[in-house]
């Protein structure tokens, strides 16, 4: 009794498999008669969507200053620890990266650094063509990463919102009241 049941099941399975094969090959068969879409890379290059994740850049704010304040969040979030930097203080009190290094030999282009960046400084671009023969050439320093534009969001300016005395005196930033006079007890 049991053997008969097993036989029936096997035949059913075989039939299912054949059905799937036929379905799959039918797609191949149909495409034999279509026009091919091979791109002649690198002679022809397709422009990738803005959000595709390739080479990393450090952008500038509308004032032309480096956006990066070397807060270490990108290096903290980086799953492969390929970002290292050293923060420092500029003459005007602005915090900036003294040096900033990304090891693209390690980078997996996951985009978490861009997500973590509070000042929109670090961004991924659609450019993916950066293979090198020598791994040391994949060590990008700050001067290699820094660009002259604002990348995806050209208007954002972190120091206009932060409320620290860098781009102007206290109370001159967005959404701030003028400084309190602690010497006065008048309401």
């Amino acid at each position, binding site marked *: 009794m049991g053997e008969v049941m097993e036989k029936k099941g096997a035949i059913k399975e075989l039939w299912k498999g054949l059905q799937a094969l036929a379905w799959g090959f039918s797609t191949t068969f149909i495409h034999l008669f279509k026009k091919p879409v091979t791109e002649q890379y690198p002679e022809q290059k397709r422009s990738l969507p803005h959000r595709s994740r390739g080479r990393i850049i450090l952008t500038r704010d509308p004032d032309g200053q480096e956006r990066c304040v070397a807060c*270490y969040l990108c290096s903290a979030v980086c799953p492969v620890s390929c970002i290292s930097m050293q923060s420092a203080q500029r003459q005007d009190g602005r915090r900036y990266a003294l040096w900033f290094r990304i090891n693209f030999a390690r980078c997996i282009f996951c985009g978490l650094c861009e997500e973590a960046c*509070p000042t929109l400084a670090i961004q991924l671009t659609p450019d993916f063509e950066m293979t090198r023969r020598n791994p040391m050439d994949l060590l990008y*320093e700050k001067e290699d990463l820094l660009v002259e534009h604002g990348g995806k969001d050209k208007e954002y300016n972190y120091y206009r919102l*932060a409320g620290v005395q860098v781009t102007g005196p*206290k109370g001159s930033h967005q*959404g701030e*009241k003028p400084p*309190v006079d602690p010497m006065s007890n008048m309401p």
Partner: protein
Amino acid sequence: MPQIVIDGRSIEVASGTKVIEAAQQLGIYIPRLCYHPALGSAGACRLCAVSFLEGPVRGLLMSCMVEAKEGMVVSTQHPDALQFRKQIMEWLMMNHPHDCPVCDEGGHCVLQEMTVAGGHSMRRFPGSKRTYEDQDLGPFVQHEMNRCIHCWRCRRFYQEYSGYKDMGVMGLASRTYFGRAVPGPLESPFAGNLIDICPTGVFTDKPSRFKARRWECQRAPSLCIHCCLGCSIVVNSRYREVLRIEAGHNPEVNGHFICDRGRYGFDYVNHPSRPRWPLVEGRACSWQEALAYAGGRLREIIEKHGPSSAAVVGSSRASLESLGALRLFCEKHAVSGPFLWMETQELKCVRRLLQGQELFVSMKQVEEADTILVVGLDPVQEAPMLALALRQAWRKGGWVGVVDPRGVELPFCFSHWVVHPREMGMALEYLAGKPKSPYEGFDDQGFLKAWRQALARGKRPVMACGTLLAKADFMGACLELAHFLRKEKGCGGLFPVLRGANSLGAVAVSGSEASGLEELLEAIERGELKALVLVETDPLFSFWGKARLKEGFKGLELILVMDYLPSGVSKQASVVMPCKSLFESSCLFVNNEGRLQEATAVHHGGIPISQMLEEANPPRTFGTEIPGGGTCAGWEALAKLSEAMGESLGFSDLPGLRNVLRQRFGWLREVRPGQRILALEPEGGKRWEEIFHSQKEEGQGALSLLLVQATFGTEELSSYSRHSCKMEAGPMGFLHPETAACLGLKQGDLVRLGWEQGELEFLLETKENMHKELLVVQAHRLLDWDKAGRPPEVVNSGQLEKII
């Protein structure tokens, strides 16, 4: 002992315990911003609200303001409490700026943690934010008032706990401002604790500003070796550079805080000219080469001139392992030493004090004392954390009396008996109730009567004494008085303040024939010595014999220096071997009360990346060698040197050395790090009677000269730190205003003190509360010790002249 139930778990706590502490004992952390175990409750931040379901009080209350009472049932997770705390967090963040990325507190910010924990992520309030102007608070503390959430911790610490008044609170309501009335450096030598204590980024560390996030740092518990107290610290290092020191928590010693000398004196380990490679005659070479050369030369000298022609010198800033290895080295090769003391007098004092070691008390016991005598000691200058402990005793209603000729300043009210150094012993005898005292009958308006009464009233007396003013049998008088108090009250004790971080360790390993540097200097000048091995010591730093030593060095055949400082003596050395500092090796220290403490290695060490930048970028090379990381601990270098001389010291690694030391020194056998050593026995058991040359007869108008310590500028290690040097006030000298007026001098004059063998120049300051027949000069690193010979004990008015 009330029984209280928190989140369904019951606990019995001591009466008077706050609910927040009871929860902590159960391991339940109630959110808080203003409560601090050392400062107590303020109820300012409203974040520790919990629901009281049953018991004497009901409803939503602050757990830091409510004492645990019998029958209380508390829920920290009650929906009402959660909702309330969430709301409070949102209010607190209403005015908080959007600057975490550029704030150094980010990464170890309590406010950040609480905000994230409360689930607050969007500012719903559409209004503008309050702003404040910041102040310049000196070289240590950075001020950024916008971030303030008005928890009052800073003011509570600064004014109530540490007792300084120059920083406090101004304004009112939501405009309260925490800062100084006038911008300027914070006066408290404990100001750095504001950085640790502030739950937000209002006070951040200036020297390490914008350098690292805490999660990037290598952190380890360590010890502060800038004075003898042995406070616990936490060290933050990154890229082979020590960036910041935070206070460690040690309930027996320093509690939660440390002083600024300990917090900012660490920078000597990052010194750009720190020795990193062995040098032979100024040429960098490998360890093998340096060891072979030095070992060969030493062996030659010993064979040629006998073993006593070589001497080994150490100091009380070296670890117990290095000191022990020094001793083993001396015994193995029969060379002279180890010389561990600058002054023989200091060694004698410490030995004499050791006779009363059963009386020694910890800093915590000082805080709990109700009557404290401070004798021959200026706590703020010599061991700042003691001043903080004394203040805590005073806040609990204790009485503090200071017997000292100097113009001692302390951050609380104390009674000051100004006694000339030569009369200190007599004064102590009088306090111990000895008959026939010259002070009998001499009593300035009942002043001494009040002292005798205070001593009679006290139930837990403690006596803190220094070693700087030891004349005649001063230490003996100290011990006698401490014994007398112990006999009278049945408790109490002695709190000695010594000069080196490891003074007790040094006295315990030095033999009965040990002596100070004067004897060494004389031996050099007599031409008996041909070779010197100096381990973690610099006799040229603020030693009156500097010029004579330098001269004597010319006649030596070999000077071998093992150190982690770019010390003066290493410039004269024929061989320099780079050592590991305290932060690069695990080591033991014995603090002033005989507590054995261990410092763990923080990082491997080596040249910091910040000192190796190529065009602002770190080097692009890689390898297994750490640049400049080839250093040895002092004991390790000594063992290797001994092997190069053909004799093994009997150990090769740290556990091995510690085993050898335990076998060699009985007092170390049963002790674990953190415990007190109860029977420090100097070798030979020979007790030193402290007999000092008596004071010369003085003429009319003669002043006794005292060379004293200062908070910043006299301690060797911190004088190599770029940070603490910013707080130095140059070399100062002090006179009583009347004495100064008689000499035609006034406050702020630059004064030269000249005598037969030399001269010293210092800025004059007058102090009302010092002895009139006294000239006090700070033994400052900026004094020209090359020009100074042995300072005279007595100065005549003609020897002081005004320069400007």
